[in-house]
């Protein structure tokens, strides 16, 4: 039985990838016991006791490295934790920085390097796109309101206004863009990324790089229906050769290690790179469902085992997200707020 901790169990309207990862781990051949890592006592995953055996609150990454590390070590002690699979952008830099220390304490991960992580900064996209043979929409990173208005005059509307970690808002007018800009600065600070919208099919690839230029499987999908927050609700598998080649180039060129997702817009023969996520996407269960259990493969890689590398999948498999309800007692909530764990 492998004790593994997974974060991102906030299955809300903008869901974290945690529950998808956990479902994959549970369906794998390696028996696991799952610890959920949460940042708020209301994260729904905490209450799903059939998926998550134990749950703990973590301090916000912004509070500093020491409290974060201490908390992880406390959980490791309590639970006999072996592996951590972080799944949120804002915590990844911390996990990457802490990796040598975590591993010295016997806590295993399978993460990109610091250098690789920096590639995902939205202002680095053009460099990555060029290296793997695809394009990027016109993108500008700004660090002040003046620069922002200057950037708007250089770009065609509609534009996407994005925070460095989270949030992407579409604006059709100057006024709308300014409103989004204020909202993003208030929450996520600078830089803010402004990007021209490219019309086309929204296609994404998920994979796990082995760190040596190869990978443990890829899956490409197209979003059929997205929510008002831009999150996938229905999707279908595709086998777009250009896109899959670009993803293999990405893994080979940067010797990517760990999970990743490339978000693209495919317009005719052109592929535009919109975003690189150095982690699993929230729809990762799609890969599990078509027989490429990437969470389990990543777990194996973290444990030092050799994961499978086959990744034949049929095009035309459908992904459907749905809402669910659960009724429970206040007791779990009470434990989370008074003890920080359950």
């Amino acid at each position, binding site marked *: 039985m492998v004790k593994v901790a997974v974060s991102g169990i906030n299955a809300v309207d903008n869901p974290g990838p945690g529950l998808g990862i956990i479902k994959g781990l549970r369906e794998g051949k390696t028996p696991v016991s799952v610890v959920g890592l949460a940042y708020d006592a209301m994260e729904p995953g905490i209450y799903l006791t059939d998926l998550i055996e134990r749950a703990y609150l973590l301090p916000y990454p912004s509070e500093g490295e020491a409290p974060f590390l201490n908390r992880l070590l406390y959980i490791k002690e309590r639970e006999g934790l072996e592996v951590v699979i972080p799944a949120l952008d804002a915590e990844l830099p911390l996990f990457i920085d802490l990796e040598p220390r975590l591993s010295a304490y016997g806590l295993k991960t399978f993460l990109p390097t610091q250098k690789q992580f920096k590639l995902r900064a939205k202002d680095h996209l053009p460099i990555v796109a060029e290296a793997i043979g695809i394009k990027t929409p016109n993108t500008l990173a700004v660090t002040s309101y003046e620069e922002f208005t200057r950037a708007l005059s250089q770009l065609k509307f509609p534009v996407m206004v994005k925070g460095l970690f989270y949030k992407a808002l579409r604006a059709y007018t100057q006024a709308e863009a300014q409103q989004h800009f204020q909202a993003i600065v208030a929450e996520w600070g600078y830089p803010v990324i402004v990007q021209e919208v490219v019309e086309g099919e929204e296609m994404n690839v998920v994979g796990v790089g082995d760190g040596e230029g190869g990978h443990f499987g890829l899956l490409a999908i197209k979003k059929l229906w997205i929510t008002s927050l831009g999150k996938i609700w229905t999707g279908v598998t595709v086998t777009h050769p250009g896109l899959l080649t670009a993803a293999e180039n990405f893994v080979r060129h940067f010797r990517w290690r760990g999970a990743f997702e490339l978000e693209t817009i495919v317009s005719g023969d052109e592929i535009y790179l919109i975003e690189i996520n150095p982690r699993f996407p929230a729809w990762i269960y799609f890969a599990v469902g078509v027989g490429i259990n990437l969470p389990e493969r990543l777990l194996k890689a973290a444990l030092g085992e050799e994961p499978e590398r086959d990744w034949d999948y049929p095009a035309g498999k459908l992904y459907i997200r749905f809402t669910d309800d659960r009724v429970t007692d*206040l007791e779990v*909530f*009470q434990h989370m*707020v*008074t*003890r920080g764990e359950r």
Partner: protein
Amino acid sequence: MKLNRLAISEEGFIFDPETGNSYTVNETGLLILKKLREGLGPEEIAEAMSEEYEVSPEEALRDVQDFLETIARFGLWEEKAWLK
């Protein structure tokens, strides 16, 4: 009295069944709530606190009054309640 409707756990978790709000209190906060329910006034509570904890009755009284103000703001307490 509003306080009587609250579900108060020994861990310091408080649930208000009328409004659906929850709160947490620390050890001394819990003590004040319990004493209020017993019908004690601020001075008596402060005295009890300084008997049990390393605090002067004066500081304790200030803190009790501050605490009462806070729970009044949360709608859990009315200033006049203990005067009656």
